[in-house]
């Protein structure tokens, strides 16, 4: 293993250890409730940027995949009482299949048509689930949490740890894709798809692969949400805000490197949590809109881009 990989895995191990320690030492429930949401957004943002960032196919499908993850978990739990691990694994498989189907249909379209097509797919999927009586339809469905296992005292603490595991998994996968030949191929097709195709890059296959992996991870992130809320309802599970928030997080953080969406998710996710609690959910949406506009206009490469520019400037000053 290369030196940077060793550093990465040590960091991941430290992160998970810190999470477990938190669950053992902190008595108050609130940090776990808020922390869960932020970890969930990290998973969603990193997963999104596999297709949206590396390949440059800006999609609005996050809400669809997240919602499908929620409802896969709901369906399995209601039908078979399946444990959380199975719900998540099943959601990942459903997400992969959905990513494949969506990918084949939409990835042949370019630019804005692709983006609009992903909005279309999201609404169609949401409408279909809204009409599915078994999982509650438009009114939603209530869920009862199963008893929690040691070493965790509360269910939310366990969910917090589970989501932390998903963070490590998602970041590891995104990092691998980024530094591998797949990452170079995606970067080439993002820069110039026709030139990439004529240089031997199998663009459709790579795009669909990115869509499958991205979809599987986003669905997996949605599965625990059903237990987190103990309630599922189509208009909130499939809310377009997820798509736009996650898009904003990746744009704000920067899409060239996996650390970008992580930073963006932490920054925007924390801001949203603070605002919703202290002021109102409308201001939340306003901040989302303003930050999106601001970063897209002023700092198109996100925070990573700003850091890189500052680094280049300092190097230039020294030279």
């Amino acid at each position, binding site marked *: 293993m290369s030196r940077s990989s060793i550093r990465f895995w040590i960091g991941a191990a430290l992160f998970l250890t810190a999470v477990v320690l938190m669950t053992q030492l902190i008595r108050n429930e609130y940090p776990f409730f808020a922390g869960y949401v932020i970890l969930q957004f990290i998973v969603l943002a990193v997963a999104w940027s596999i297709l949206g960032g590396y390949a440059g196919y800006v999609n609005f499908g996050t809400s669809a995949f997240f919602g499908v993850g929620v409802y896969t978990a709901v369906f399995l739990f209601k039908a078979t009482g399946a444990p959380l691990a199975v719900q998540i694994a099943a959601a990942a498989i459903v997400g992969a299949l959905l990513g494949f189907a969506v990918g084949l249909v939409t990835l042949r379209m370019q630019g804005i048509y692709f983006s609009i097509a992903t909005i279309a797919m999201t609404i169609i999927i949401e409408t279909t689930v809204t009409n599915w009586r078994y999982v509650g339809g438009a009114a939603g469905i209530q869920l009862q949490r199963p008893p929690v296992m040691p070493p965790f005292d509360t269910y939310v603490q366990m969910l917090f740890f589970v989501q932390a595991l998903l963070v490590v998994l998602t970041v590891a996968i995104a990092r691998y894709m980024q530094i591998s030949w797949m990452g*170079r191929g995606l970067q080439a097709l993002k820069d*110039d798809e026709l030139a*990439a195709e004529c*240089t*031997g890059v199998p663009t459709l296959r790579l795009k669909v692969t990115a869509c499958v992996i991205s979809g599987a991870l986003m669905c997996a992130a949605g599965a625990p949400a059903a237990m987190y809320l103990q309630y599922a309802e189509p208009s909130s599970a499939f809310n377009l805000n997820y798509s736009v928030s996650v898009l904003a997080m990746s744009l704000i953080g920067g899409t060239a490197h996996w650390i970008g969406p992580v930073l963006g998710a932490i920054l925007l996710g924390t801001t949203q949590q603070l605002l919703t609690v202290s002021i109102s959910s409308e201001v939340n949406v306003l901040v989302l809109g303003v930050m999106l506009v601001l970063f897209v206009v002023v700092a198109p490469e996100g925070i990573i881009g700003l850091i890189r520019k500052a680094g280049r400037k300092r190097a230039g000053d020294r030279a």
Partner: protein
Amino acid sequence: MMPPGGPDRAPVLRISALTKRFGGFIALDNVSVDIHPGERFGLIGPNGSGKTTLINCISGAFRTEAGTVVFAGEDITPLAPHIRTRRGIARSFQIPRPFKSMTVAENLMVALDFASVGGDFIPAAQRRDTVMSILTQMGLASKADLSTLGLSQVELRKMELARAMATHPKLLISDEAMAGLSSSEVDEVLDLLIKLAGQGITIIMIEHIMQAVMRFSERVMCLDAGKIIAIGAPAEVMANQRVQEAYLGT
């Protein structure tokens, strides 16, 4: 100058009855031509005559309404562009299309990563050497680790050709690589293409600069409004009355 392959050598590229339409507009009309292995083939014609369309059909960027493209004995008409590249067809673009977020060396790395699948697999350690040797051949070695954004026009054109060469092609198509260059830059690129031809690669060159076409080509084909109006030795084609009319107007 090497004589073209005789009639008993199979053509490396056989285009038969190729037709391409855009809505009501016929861009290529029943075009048929054989290109021989190792040949230096010039393609000329006024603007809009279908030269780049023909290249797009050969490289797979366009699907055709009728006709076939057979490369090295295989019918590649249904194949996607990236597969044709792996079979050995490479092209440069009229307006250079570098991968802007990468360095010059990384641009060529993409070709080594993807175009040498199945054929000549190059182990990772050797890739840097392979890239550097191609860049040295093209006179771009000093620019290897620089971003493509800083390259001059002629350097961009050479990088296009370098990246095409990195796919290890049997057939290289150069689309107006010399357009807009100064006469010494034109000579630079022309010498490069002649050197590549000397390595046994079949080259189709689209150009408007007639001296370059004359110096380079063993055979020249002239298109006008999607049809072939002349094909043969350069001097013959240039002297052809229909060719002169096409360029100057009647």
